């Protein structure tokens, strides 16, 4: 175990860095996707309602690994068939898109539930003062929705962090992929996967501790 850490330590840390990078990028885009589709979902426009529901159902209905294959291998092939050569996605790009789409769908549901948990009277009071729908949403409803959403959002963050391991299948050099390489080279599966597992665990436990703090902070003064 010590020899693995001595030999592969820097590479493992680098791979962990890639995992975190992929997580962070995906989360940023997932938040945007989630917000957009949840707003479509809670609005009154039937057409946007339909798009919002279709997106969530569509993406949630496909396993992440299939989505990743589709984006990494399928889409460039499709674009080539349309006559555009040289189109390629890097593993990071494809991975970010796949994870962001996947996480975004769950995020949309979390945000929708958060918005719906805010008393309807809040929107009415804001509208009665002359503020339009968008301003009422941004200044009155969303800030209150966020409070109830925080535990679920943190939970989703952790799931997404773990889901990055699935993207080892498209060759992105994140932590799980590095684990495969090392266990292949050293033939020490037990030690390698124990180390990789512990690395994930440490990051995730740290994250949830930080998250608990944020949650307490936001709930203050309620």
């Amino acid at each position, binding site marked *: 175990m010590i020899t693995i850490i001595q030999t592969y330590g820097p590479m493992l840390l680098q791979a962990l860095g890639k995992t975190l990078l992929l997580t962070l990028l995906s989360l940023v885009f997932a938040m945007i996707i989630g917000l957009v589709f949840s707003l479509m979902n809670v609005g009154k426009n039937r057409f946007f309602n339909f798009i919002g529901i279709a997106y969530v159902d569509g993406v949630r209905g496909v396993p992440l690994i299939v989505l990743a294959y589709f984006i990494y291998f399928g889409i460039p092939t499709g674009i080539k068939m349309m006559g555009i050569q040289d189109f390629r996605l890097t593993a990071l790009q494809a991975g970010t898109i796949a994870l962001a789409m996947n996480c975004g769908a769950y995020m949309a549901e979390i945000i929708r539930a958060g918005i719906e948990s805010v008393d309807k009277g809040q929107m009415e009071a804001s509208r009665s003062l002359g503020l339009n729908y968008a301003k009422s949403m941004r200044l009155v409803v969303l*800030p209150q929705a966020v409070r109830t959403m925080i535990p679920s959002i943190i939970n989703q963050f952790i799931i997404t962090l773990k889901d990055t391991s699935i993207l080892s299948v498209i060759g992105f050099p994140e932590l799980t992929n590095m684990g495969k390489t090392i266990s292949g080279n050293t033939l020490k599966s037990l030690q390698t996967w124990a180390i990789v597992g512990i690395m994930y665990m440490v990051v995730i436990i740290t994250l949830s501790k930080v998250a608990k703090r944020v949650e307490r902070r936001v709930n203050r003064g309620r």
Partner: protein
Amino acid sequence: MEDKTIKIHVEKLKKNFGTLEVLKDMSIDIFEGEVVVLLGPSGSGKSTFLRCLNQLEEATAGIIVVDGMNITDKHTDINKVRENIGMVFQHFNLFPHKTVLENIMLAPVELKLMTKAEAKEKGMQLLNRVGLDTKADAYPSQLSGGQKQRIAIARSLAMNPDIMLFDEPTSALDPEMVGEVLAVMKELASEGMTMVVVTHEIGFAKEVADRIVFMDDGYIVEQGSAQEVIMNPKESRTIDFLNKVL
């Protein structure tokens, strides 16, 4: 009323919720400075009617004209009209994530009607007026029901409305807090605010209302002064109702 400027004109208003007809045929003119109290059993459509007046409920049919603007017309900028119509709700609906003063300042500042400094000054003035200037930095959760409702009134007044709508403003209050809210409303009435009030406070209606409108089953059954409607009701439905509540 000597001054007969029409402030709110309602003609053949209908409102359905799905197949349920809540307002069947409502026509009424409300004059500037008039205090109109809507009475009636629950389910008679009082609150729905009130909520149509600022289009929190979209009218199914009919015309509502406020200050010369037809608010049932889709092309009317309803947000502009609402700036002039304050509304006070049964459950206060203060913004819990904002302090009392922030609650009051929000709309005037966001709508660029006042600078922050002006809104703050106006806010403190209004808090003074409702007797809660010491609560400026408190959060709504730290206030009693009566205090919340007085803040809600101050929040509406910050927009300098011409019309105030009250939707059962004392129904969610403990009995000992009703008086403080009614006192603020009386003061507003005496200053000439046009007010439409849905309430079960018959005493308030008698004392303050210029006109009492008795509604039942989506129609106006009877209207007139307190003397006429409460002391000498003509319609049997009004008499039944008054017998139950008095």
